């Protein structure tokens, strides 16, 4: 199996991309891999694609399709905002506690003692460690925020969107009549 995969892989032509500035590349990659921007990117694309897919689901009737579209829209908006609101402060808190050269009392609290020697701010392992610890912290917070914030927020916004759609349709029918 692995022989055939390697043969297929070897047939792919070599490709090249324009030369870029390594510092700019690193900055963009660092920014995009942080939990909050990552959530924002997936949230924005979800808002574009998911309601469209729900609105074109021909397997259910129009009323169900409309409700499903409203709920998906509400879920994406609330989920993205709540996700960013939880992830960004979690990352900032973890970052503040993972500075190997920091002078504050708490600067090194979240770095394992055995890894401190020779560790620099640019270490790729340190950057990954920050993402891991902040993701775990965010998950802990989300155990509560999913029930206390996301679910009621989604229900509220879904109902608001349903009412707006119904009012719009009623107005349209009135105009048509």
């Amino acid at each position, binding site marked *: 199996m692995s022989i055939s*995969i*390697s043969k297929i892989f070897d047939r792919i032509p070599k490709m090249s991309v324009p030369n870029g500035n390594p510092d700019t590349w690193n900055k963009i990659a660092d920014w995009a891999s942080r939990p909050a921007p990552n959530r924002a990117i*997936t949230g924005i*694309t979800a808002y574009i694609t998911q309601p469209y*897919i729900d609105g074109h689901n021909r397997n259910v009737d129009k009323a169900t399709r409309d*409700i499903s579209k409203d709920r998906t829209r509400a879920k994406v908006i609330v989920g993205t905002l709540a996700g960013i609101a939880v992830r960004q402060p979690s990352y900032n808190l973890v970052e503040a506690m993972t500075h190997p050269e920091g002078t504050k009392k708490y600067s090194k609290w979240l770095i394992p003692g055995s890894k401190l020697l020779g560790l620099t701010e640019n270490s790729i392992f340190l950057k990954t*460690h920050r993402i891991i610890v902040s993701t775990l912290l965010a998950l802990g917070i989300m155990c509560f925020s*999913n029930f206390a914030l996301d679910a009621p927020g989604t229900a509220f916004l879904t*109902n608001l969107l349903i009412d707006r759609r119904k009012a719009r349709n009623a107005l349209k029918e009135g105009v048509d009549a």
Partner: protein
Amino acid sequence: MRKVFDKYLENLWNNYSKDPAKILVHTGTIGWALSSAAQITAILFNDKISAKDKTFLIPQETFDAAVNIGCFYLLTSGIKKFSQKLVTTGKILPRAIRAYMDKSPFKDSYGKFGFNMEKDLKPLASFEPYKKSYTAFKNIFTGGSTIGATVLSCNIVTPLLRNELASFSHNTIVKRANEGKNQVFTKEELENKDSKVFQLKYKPALYNNHTGGMKV
């Protein structure tokens, strides 16, 4: 206490800082399951959504979590590994590094499945000026591919699949309910007040009328 916490941090560092995908998959799985549970609760208690629509929205939410988890394991991590392989074998490189590789002793072997830029070029001092550019390119290419794969899997493949599955479940329930409505009963069944059919067909209406007049 600090010692125990330090040991925990050290475990995290040793196990996941080289390959964070493992822990991100686990946290993602727990996150999706939790979010789905919360959303299902919200749908169940939303009075503005009819029972008929709930028979679609609840399976839709359940399948959303299940398909998302499956897609993450199969699609997202597969694309991520493939994009990493493209860079580490030298199949895709910035022009300057490719020009260097074409003149290097590895000009015939790079880009092949078994080649590894990081291991095979390590002893080569002449690669040192290109190392920073290579690492930065690897970061942005695999990072971009992972984001692209996440968008494809979570925002295109998952909604398409979850809708198919939820529609099937919804239509099965609706069909069963309609079959019940169209059921033809015998005259005896309908007239016998002790029969199950009579109870099912008329009791709810009688009960509703009665309680309607009993508002306190």
